[in-house]
């Protein structure tokens, strides 16, 4: 086999619909009788709800249902579900879709209205009278851990939600024997994934059959179906989740949100379909936040630059309530803090701290960008301390023997030193050293920074993910069919959200079957008919495990096609070749049978074509559960200039060398890397969810929360290398999150290099002009 489509830079099949305005997004879903919902949100960061009076809202013309937090609680069978338990003995928050007795953050939902349109629903919200008794709030880890801190959950002794530790080797010994010990504290601001399309749901409760029919722009329709069933006390077959086109996910749409349940409850109360779409302002309080951590670390090293130990503590600055994934992003930071380095002794504590902010959940990169920032900073610091080239420290410590048991995960394969060289070659080819020298001669401050990352992708092996605390499988089911015209349909449980997964899976199927790409259609997004996939399209797993599942199913289907053709030719299947959907006998090009001929026989006219012992239809199903994760890796280089009078950073160049195993479509991988890198730029220089002294939310629009725009994202250069995952059919590794992981550290190092004369060290993100200017001035004073 080998139709040449794996590895082909082909245009995405999704794009014609998306670019011509023919996509159907959640807000385009308008069943007859649709109502629209709005949610009343707390203006206080922390307050007791003394009284809620909804009478005036209920009486408002156009309003068909009003529910309070207590109403919703009475209708659900259990609190909001948690699917990732890092600290099984630790405390878990008990949260319902809307606040019940207390509001715990600015924007916490209190009541909801369904009305004939959104404006009417919002008018009615203003008629709901809530009496609050404000309480003191905590928004920083230090405030939350203070001995006299107000407690968010009054039955807890403090604000600590859970503790765990990631450990390997003898850390005490490593530090006792160290020639060098370096310490640092890092702080990462709170951010959120901000997809172009906000989250939304259309829920229809059938009062006669007790079916719940949901349209949801989720990354995990099967997970949503399971959790709707759990929360509402329904059998799974009574819940249907359909996914329309999705305008970006980034992990924000991976969780199971209370507002989805609220829409279902409002539909039940009103007898009508109910749509709830968070608007952009709400998204800043209603969609999960991410990234905010304080990390204290120490590294132990020998005088030759060998890192012998790593220890420290990750404080996850959680929100008031757990998101669907609880403390796991912060645990992930600890789990991968050794990164691509073979550090024999590691002990990283993880402490989850609740604060009066929205829940902390998944966002592209999960815990990895923070871990990467830490290990790359420490590598550079060690190199400075020892007076050696940081790349020599990287090389000295890179994992070179695979498989490698890191503190948690087993790295399957990698060629880290070659990838570092590939990146440095790209920098040489781009002539950055001359640009830096020229700029510095002219008095400008320009520098180059690097970061090397590795990434636990294809986070799918069900037993491994269960052992990590994820209470959900990670396998992937796929079905591949050939129809009576010889065309192919691929059925997947993965979700298309703009990343191009339909095209990638179509390429795999077309490659294996040797059919033209435009003969393949990928179908996904309806739990009533789609194959199952564990927990959803996240954690850089769709192309790797979805691709492997399609590859295996298509391989079996190809064998059946060849058996049928062999029967026609009275030849052995091994003597046949397929080219562009035409089967012929090797060396006998005159005789051929097409996929259309075989499809026709398999479905409509079997007589004389289909062998007696072959079942009709051309359909193969595969359930693929990998034995291990797949470790992708890459190196990022950034060229940056700093205005030392203003503290403004400009990015002048951005190069990525990357290896995600076998590349299915380099253009898609380039896009994934570039999109991730843009988000890394946002996190490094612009994005911060800010809170005031009293705990009030200060970032409620894109005027305050600054995303990287086209004007601040430099041109990217991407170089690929391929180290196939030999345990995954096809050799695929994940690529969806890679771009975001190393960007922060590379940008910080470019800034440090540009400001070498001032000795500026970047230990927190984002790097804002006022903060950087203060650091420059402090450096000038030294």
């Amino acid at each position, binding site marked *: 086999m080998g139709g040449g489509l794996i590895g082909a830079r082909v245009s995405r099949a999704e794009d014609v619909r998306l670019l011509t305005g023919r996509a159907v997004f959640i807000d385009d879903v308008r069943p007859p009788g649709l109502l629209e919902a709005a949610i009343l949100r707390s203006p206080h960061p922390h307050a007791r709800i003394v009284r809620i009076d909804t009478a005036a809202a209920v009486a408002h013309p156009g309003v068909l249902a009003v529910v309070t937090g207590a109403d919703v609680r009475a209708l659900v069978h259990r609190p909001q579900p948690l699917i990732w338990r890092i600290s099984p003995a630790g405390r878990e928050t008990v949260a319902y879709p809307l606040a019940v007795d207390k509001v715990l953050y600015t924007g916490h939902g209190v009541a909801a209205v369904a009305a004939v*349109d*959104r*404006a009417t629903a*919002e*008018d009615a919200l*203003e008629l709901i009278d809530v009496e609050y008794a404000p309480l003191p709030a905590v928004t920083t880890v230090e405030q939350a851990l203070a001995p006299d801190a107000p407690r968010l959950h009054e039955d807890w002794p403090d604000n600590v939600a859970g503790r765990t530790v990631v450990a390997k080797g003898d850390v005490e010994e490593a530090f006792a024997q160290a020639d060098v010990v370096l310490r640092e504290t890092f702080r990462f601001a709170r951010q959120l994934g901000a997809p172009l399309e906000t989250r939304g749901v259309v829920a229809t409760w059938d009062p006669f059959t007790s079916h719940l029919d949901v349209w949801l722009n989720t990354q995990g329709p099967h997970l949503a179906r399971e959790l709707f069933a759990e929360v509402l006390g329904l059998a799974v077959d009574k819940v249907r989740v359909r996914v329309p086109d999705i305008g970006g996910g980034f992990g924000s749409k991976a969780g199971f949100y209370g507002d989805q349940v609220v829409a279902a409850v409002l539909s039940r109360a009103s007898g009508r379909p109910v749509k709830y779409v968070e*608007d952009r*302002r*709400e998204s800043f309080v209603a969609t999960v936040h991410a990234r905010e951590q304080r990390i204290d670390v120490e590294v132990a090293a020998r005088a030759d630059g060998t890192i012998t130990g790593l220890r420290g503590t990750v404080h996850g600055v959680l929100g008031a309530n757990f998101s669907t994934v609880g403390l796991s992003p912060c645990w992930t930071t600890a789990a991968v803090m050794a990164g691509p380095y073979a550090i024999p002794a590691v002990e990283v504590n993880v402490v989850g701290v609740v604060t009066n902010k929205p829940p902390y959940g998944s966002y592209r990169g999960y815990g990895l960008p923070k871990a990467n920032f830490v290990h790359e900073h420490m590598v550079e610091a060690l190199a400075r301390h020892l007076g050696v080239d940081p790349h020599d420290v990287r090389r000295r410590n890179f994992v070179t023997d695979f498989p490698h048991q890191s503190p948690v995960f087993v790295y399957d394969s990698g060629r880290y030193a070659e990838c570092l060289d590939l990146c440095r070659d790209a920098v040489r080819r781009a002539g950055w050293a001359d640009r830096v020298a020229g700029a510095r001669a002219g008095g400008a401050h320009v520098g180059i920074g690097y970061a090397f990352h590795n990434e636990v992708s294809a986070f799918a092996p069900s037993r491994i993910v269960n052992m990590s605390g994820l209470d959900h499988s990670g396998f992937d089911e796929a079905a591949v069919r050939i129809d009576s015209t010889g065309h192919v349909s691929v059925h997947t449980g993965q979700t298309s959200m703009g990343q191009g997964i339909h095209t990638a899976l179509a390429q795999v199927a077309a490659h294996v079957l040797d059919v033209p790409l435009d003969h393949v259609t990928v179908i996904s997004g309806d739990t009533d008919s789609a194959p199952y996939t564990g927990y959803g399209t996240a954690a850089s797993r769709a192309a790797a495990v979805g691709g492997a599942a399609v590859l295996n199913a298509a391989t079996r289907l190809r064998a059946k096609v060849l058996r049928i053709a062999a029967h026609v030719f009275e030849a052995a299947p091994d003597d046949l070749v397929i080219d562009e959907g035409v089967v012929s006998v090797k060396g006998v090009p005159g005789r051929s049978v097409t996929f259309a001929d075989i499809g026709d026989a398999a479905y409509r006219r079997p007589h004389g074509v289909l062998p007696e012992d072959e079942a009709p239809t051309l359909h193969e199903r595969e359930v693929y559960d990998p034995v291990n994760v797949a470790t992708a890796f890459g190196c990022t280089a950034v060229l940056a200039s700093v205005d030392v*009078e*203003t503290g*403004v950073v400009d990015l002048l160049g951005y190069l990525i060398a990357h290896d995600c195993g076998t590349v299915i479509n380099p253009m898609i991988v380039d896009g994934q890397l570039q999109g991730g890198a843009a988000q890394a730029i946002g996190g490094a220089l*612009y994005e*911060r969810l*800010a809170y005031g002294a009293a705990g009030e939310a*200060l*970032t409620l*629009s894109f*005027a*305050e929360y*600054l995303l*990287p*725009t086209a*004007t*601040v994202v430099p041109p990217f250069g991407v170089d690929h290398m391929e180290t196939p995952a030999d345990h995954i059919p096809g050799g695929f590794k994940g690529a969806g999150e890679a771009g975001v992981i190393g960007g922060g550290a590379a940008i910080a190092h470019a800034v440090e290099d540009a400001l070498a004369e001032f000795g500026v060290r970047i230990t927190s993100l984002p790097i*804002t*002009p*006022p903060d950087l*200017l203060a650091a420059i001035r402090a450096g000038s004073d030294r």
Partner: protein
Amino acid sequence: MKAAPFDYVRASSVEMAVDALRDGAVALAGGQSLIPLLNARARRPAVVVDVSRLPLAGVEQVGSTLVLGAMTRLRAAETSPVVRRAVPLLAEALTHVGHVSVRNRGTVGGSVAHADPAAELPAVLLALDAVFSVRGRGGTREVDARDFFRGPHRTALAADELLTGIRVPLPPATARCGIAELSRRPHDLAITAVFTSVVLTGRVVTDVRIAVAGAAPVPLRAHAAEHVLRGEVFGPDVLAAAAEAAADATDPIDDVHAPAAYRRDMTAVLTRRALRQAVPA
């Protein structure tokens, strides 16, 4: 979010608009600031008076004055050869206002009446000694730019008055201009911006205007800085002194983008840079 309910009046004449304007009413021009505020329910007018169809658009030079109709789109003013030739500082300042799509819809009158303390247009018009034509029920009055801006989003306009035009005295042909703006991303609302116009006779400064946006509750005219420069030979020492004088005049705020002290310091940096842009070394 969706706007709270309001009544809507589409004015077909200035008289009709003025008649509809009163306490609780607001004029809608290009909508680039007002519509988001309405949708966030941050402004809840009883009546929105749509003035966008009034015949108040256009740019012309009348003798030694540039006259802009209030409904002139920002982009039209920016790209007008008349503006570019007569008042280059204004044309250049307009290129900094939002993105092109915003300037296509936004109007010069709307930007002035919205009176955002960080906006370019109020500050540059203050530097240029512009005069605003204001129509009320009693007729038209003229308000100097220096008297117009009263606070963040507050102006000398009474509830029943409409800004109809802007008159800008032409600077001397020898005036050189400079703009230095600092924003978090290009085309964002400025953190701080400085607009300068300098006339030299030989090396001596004979006229200078300096206005600062984003450094006080209203756009600032840096009179003390101008005083430092006027009559002096243009050079690094007076530049530094003028920059400090401009910074001393500020009364900035803290917000999520920058603390007040940073805005003050940037006023000095940007004043020096704007003056240097006007008169390169």
